[in-house]
């Protein structure tokens, strides 16, 4: 069965600095990987996905993530953090395209960008 770990409950970063939110995963087949963001009192929003192709994936709001197969990681990154990036971030994995596979979400990492 697939699983996702987000080893940090909380990440604090100063505005303008680069940010990284970590995610590691475990699947038996080919991983399909996703990042979602949840702002207060709003639903989860899709940020980006890795299905196949380039290991560096670019998504919404200037975020990007790097797929590293050997380290089974999919860390979310942004070169310059904004205060408005402060939110809850979830990594999710699906075990390939097989019919019937479902998504597993990590526990979330709260990002605080300090002015």
């Amino acid at each position: 069965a697939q699983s996702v770990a987000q080893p940090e409950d909380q990440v604090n970063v100063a505005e303008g600095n680069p940010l990284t939110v970590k995610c590691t995963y475990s699947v038996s087949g080919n991983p399909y990987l996703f990042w979602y963001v949840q702002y207060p009192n709003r639903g989860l929003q899709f940020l980006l996905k890795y299905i196949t192709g380039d290991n560096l994936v670019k998504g919404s709001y200037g975020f990007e993530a790097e797929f590293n197969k050997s380290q089974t990681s999919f860390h979310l990154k942004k070169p310059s953090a904004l205060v408005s990036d402060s939110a809850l971030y979830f990594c999710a994995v699906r075990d390939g395209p097989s019919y019937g596979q479902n998504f597993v979400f990590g526990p979330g990492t709260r990002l605080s960008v300090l002015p």
Partner: protein
Amino acid sequence: GAGVSQTPSNKVTEKGKYVELRCDPISGHTALYWYRQSLGQGPEFLIYFQGTGAADDSGLPNDRFFAVRPEGSVSTLKIQRTERGDSAVYLCASSPGGNRAYEQYFGPGTRLTVT
């Protein structure tokens, strides 16, 4: 365009009662997912529809939970004999096909409180 909508936004019910939660997906999205999110945790998969059929219901916790999507659009999650442990935010997401498959677009959720 219109996003995923869920009704009601809040539902308070007494232990033992029956509840129905409704999800209106984005028009044209073929896949629909239900999740449950408890405080401080990531979404927990419940069930996934492809069209009218449940492609994967392995996340439903027990037979008190049931979901339908009779016409391949609106879905209803039904919970019988509610228990206090069912209290959570129930999230619905829909997903298009093609090269945007697996991108899930979430509704705002229904907060269920069982007293």
